[in-house]
C-alpha cells in the first residue's frame, strides 16, 4: 500500500498542527527554538518556530503571535484546545537556541540561550513537562516530529540525525 504520509511545514515565526499519519517539520533553526506540544493519546502535535523571547520586544503594531515565546506557546495551546486536546495531557519537546556566531556581550548575540530560557519559563507557567530537548551549542538544526511515535528527529550538519 502506498503511504499517504504528508509533512506539515512550519516557517520561521510560524506555527501549525499535524495529526498522525502527518508529521510536522521546521528547517534551519539557529538561535530560534522549535517547540513541539503534543498529545500522545490523540496523536496530534503543534509546532511553533519561536524567534524572540518576549512579545514586549515587538516594536510593530501588528503582532505575529508565533514569533515570540510567550504569545506563541499560548496561541499554540489555544489551537490544541480547539482540537479537543485536554491541557493536562500535553507534553513538550524542544530543540534549537544555538549561538551561531561568537560575539561579545550584546543582548542580540545571546538570543539563542534567551529564547530557550523564555520557552522553558512559559512551559513551566502552563505546567507542561519537557520530555526531551536538544538546545544550545553552535549548530543549526532541522527538526521533524512524528505524532504517531512521539519521536522528534533532529538533524544537524555535523552529527547527522538524532532521535529524541
Amino acid at each position, binding site marked *: 500500500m502506498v503511504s499517504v504520509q504528508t509533512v506539515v511545514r512550519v*516557517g*520561521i*515565526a*510560524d506555527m501549525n498542527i499535524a495529526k498522525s499519519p502527518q508529521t510536522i517539520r521546521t*528547517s*534551519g*533553526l*539557529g*538561535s*530560534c527554538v522549535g517547540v513541539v506540544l503534543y498529545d500522545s493519546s490523540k496523536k496530534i502535535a503543534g509546532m511553533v518556530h519561536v*524567534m*524572540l523571547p518576549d512579545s514586549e*520586544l*515587538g*516594536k*510593530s503594531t*501588528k503582532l*505575529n503571535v508565533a*514569533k515570540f515565546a510567550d504569545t506563541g506557546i499560548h496561541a499554540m495551546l489555544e489551537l490544541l484546545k480547539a482540537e479537543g486536546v485536554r491541557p493536562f495531557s500535553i507534553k513538550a519537546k524542544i530543540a534549537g537556541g*544555538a549561538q*551561531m*556566531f*561568537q*560575539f561579545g556581550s*550584546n543582548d*542580540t548575540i545571546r*538570543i539563542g540561550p534567551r529564547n530557550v530560557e523564555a520557552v522553558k519559563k512559559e512551559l513551566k507557567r502552563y505546567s507542561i513537562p519537557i520530555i526531551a530537548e536538544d538546545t544550545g551549542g*553552535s*549548530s*543549526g*538544526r*532541522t527538526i521533524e516530529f512524528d505524532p504517531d511515535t512521539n519521536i522528534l528527529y533532529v538533524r544537524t*550538519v*555535523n552529527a547527522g540525525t538524532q532521535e529524541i
Partner: protein
Amino acid sequence: MNSKNDITEMHLDVLKEIGNIGAAHAATSLSQLLGQKIDMRVPKVELVTFDEMFDLAGGTEKVVAGIFLRIEGDLTGTMFFVLTIESATQFIRKLTGDVAFTFTDVEDLGMGASALQELGNILSGSYLSALSDFTSLNIYPTVPSLSIDMVGAIVSFGLIEVSQYSDEVIVIETEILQEGKQGVSSLAGHFFLLPDPPSYRTIFSSLGVL
C-alpha cells in the same frame, strides 16, 4: 519613515545604488586578492518575508559558509557574505596554498577558518568604506564571525534586529560570480546588507532624498 509604506520607488533606487557601489568595491578587492576574475550582478533590492530571504540565500537547509558582521556607527545593520561550499573551498585553497583543503570537519577548519574570516574582513571593509564615502556617514564593522551551517540557521541570526519591527525585511542583495573553466561563471555567493529599520531615515537624509 516608520512604516515601510513611506519607502518609495526612488528610495529603493537609492538603496540599489548603495548595493552597486559597495559590492563593486568588494568584488574588485576579492578579484585582486585571488588574482582571478570576479563578476557581480546588478544588485536587487527587495522587500521579502523571512522565509523568502532564506530562499534568496539558497534555501533554509542548504549548507553554506556564512560570514556575518554587525555595522555600527551612524548607520546600524547587519551584513552577510554567504558563500557556496564549493567557492569557499576554492578561495581557501588559493589563500592558504593548501590545495587539498576540504570542509570535512566543520568543527575544526584550522587555517581555513582564519582565511575565510580574513576574506570577510577585506570584503566587508571595502563594501562599507565605499558606502561610508557615498553617504558621508561614519560606519564601523565589527570583526566578522564565521559559521558553516544551514542557510536558515545563519541568516535568521541576521534577522533578529529587524524581526522586532516587522515580519518582512528590505534586503540589498548582490550576487557574485566566479569565472570557471571555459569562461563559464558560477555563483560564488551573495552579499546581503540589511539596515536596521531606524537607519533608513539616516541613509535617506544623508543622501538628501528623505
